[in-house]
């Protein structure tokens, strides 16, 4: 492990953490997908969760959202396991995969179903449609949407309950430059107002421009946690660090 990693692995013991992951481990048979992972997220920050495919990013996000159970350790949001949250949609918004939608259902009905389950008004559905520039196509079936439109619909769904924490798996995937710019400024505003964001990605350039801090995960372990400002002060780029830690670990 590199010297940078030793100094900057984030400490999980902070008091007002929105997300606190402690010794989180997930095994599938003999495969260890997530290995003794610990980190925490403070309010008002955007954290990039980086790593190659299969590094354990999505598994970690699924455990944070209560979709998968940890083998051991804890994945807490707002002080407890996700599945014990009251009104989770009002606290956490998530976009996991691009195709979590029925192709034969309209965009508006996709949102209205989630809004009904979350106890969110119809008016809010129209607001998030507007936010995602989807009002004009809201009646159309999701199956006719472009990749970028489905992406924006997923984000619109995550925002329905006006959450304080956003968990986004590869959110920039499929967005055009305009959409990407919109997402960046939206996330910045969200964090400036006290919201917390965790974005997983493997597109370094996109992350470097958006996040305050990165966690690099490899083989289910965090190998580096570093602030973007710190990188600039050292005269390094995110790519330098990423390549150095991933090649060190791999060798």
């Amino acid at each position, binding site marked *: 492990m590199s010297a940078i990693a030793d100094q900057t692995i984030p400490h999980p013991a902070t008091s007002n953490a929105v997300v606190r992951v402690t010794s989180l481990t997930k095994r599938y048979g003999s495969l260890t997908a997530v290995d003794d992972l610990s980190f925490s997220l403070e309010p008002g920050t955007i954290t990039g969760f980086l790593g190659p495919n299969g590094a354990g990013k999505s598994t970690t996000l699924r455990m944070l*959202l209560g979709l998968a159970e940890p083998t051991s350790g804890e994945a807490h949001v707002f002080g407890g396991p*996700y599945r014990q949250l009251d009104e989770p949609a009002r606290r956490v918004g998530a976009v996991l995969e691009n195709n979590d939608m029925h*192709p034969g259902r309209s965009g508006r009905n996709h949102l209205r179903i989630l809004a009904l389950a979350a106890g969110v008004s119809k008016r809010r559905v129209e607001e998030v449609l507007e936010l995602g520039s989807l009002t004009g196509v809201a009646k159309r079936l999701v199956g006719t949407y472009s990749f970028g439109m489905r992406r924006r619909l997923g984000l619109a769904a995550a925002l329905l309950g006006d959450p304080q924490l956003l968990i986004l798996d590869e959110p920039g995937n499929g967005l055009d430059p305009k959409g990407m710019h919109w997402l960046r400024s939206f996330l910045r505003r969200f964090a400036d107002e006290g919201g917390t964001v965790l974005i997983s990605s493997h597109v370094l350039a996109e992350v470097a421009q958006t996040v305050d801090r990165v966690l690099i995960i490899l083989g289910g372990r965090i190998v580096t946690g570093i602030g973007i400002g710190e990188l600039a002060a050292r005269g390094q780029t995110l790519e330098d660090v990423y390549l150095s830690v991933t090649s060190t670990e791999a060798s």
Partner: protein
Amino acid sequence: MSWRLLRAEFLKQRSTRTNLELLGAMVGLIALIVYVHGVQLPVERLATRTAQLIVLGQGRMIGTLFGAILGGLSITGEFRHGTIRPTFVVTPKRGRVLLVKVVVGALFGVAFGLIAAAAAVGVGGAALAQRGVVLSLDGNDYALLLAGTAAGAGLWAAIGTGLGAVVRNQVPLLIGICIWLLFVESLLFEDLGLKKIAGISDIGRFLPGTLAKEAAGLGDQTLLAPGAAVLGLAVYAVAAAAIGWMAIRARDVP
């Protein structure tokens, strides 16, 4: 049970064309089967009440089958399209999601059963009248046919939902339901006469497909009263929902 989850599930069921397409396929299939029976059987055989019940009761089997498919699709469809993830992220209490699916599935199943029975009675009655056969069924027969088919399809929809939560994968579930209802219970048990073998008949009359048949007054009359058959089927529905709940509560969502 949560009112808002019920409304969400109703909108889920209404907002795609799946159920309409299922309904169309069911009514078409029933019309075809009943018409063929009504046209093919000799007039003298059609004169008896028993034969008329067989023709006009063809909606029962198809109604049960489509009820089960409808219930199974309500949950396996979510796994297939990935909507199970946003569903459980918004409502992490998975037992509530499943309970609402069982209830809404059963209500849609009842509607499918009523339409199935009515379609068979309508097409069958018309086919027999066309051939000059006087119908000898009374009001009780029709009432039992409608109510029993509706109850059977509704409870089988609940069974399908519970099993869907265990199997998760659409194709094996639908094949399994078809094999059970059409092959195991209908062909082996009924048509090939497995039920006549001593010992097997005692088990056979409590099988869930047979119970759905008895519920509509279409069984051997000697097996179980329709009310008891509905109760027996309800036990299966509760058991399937409970197994589904155990499976969905603990297992990871892909």
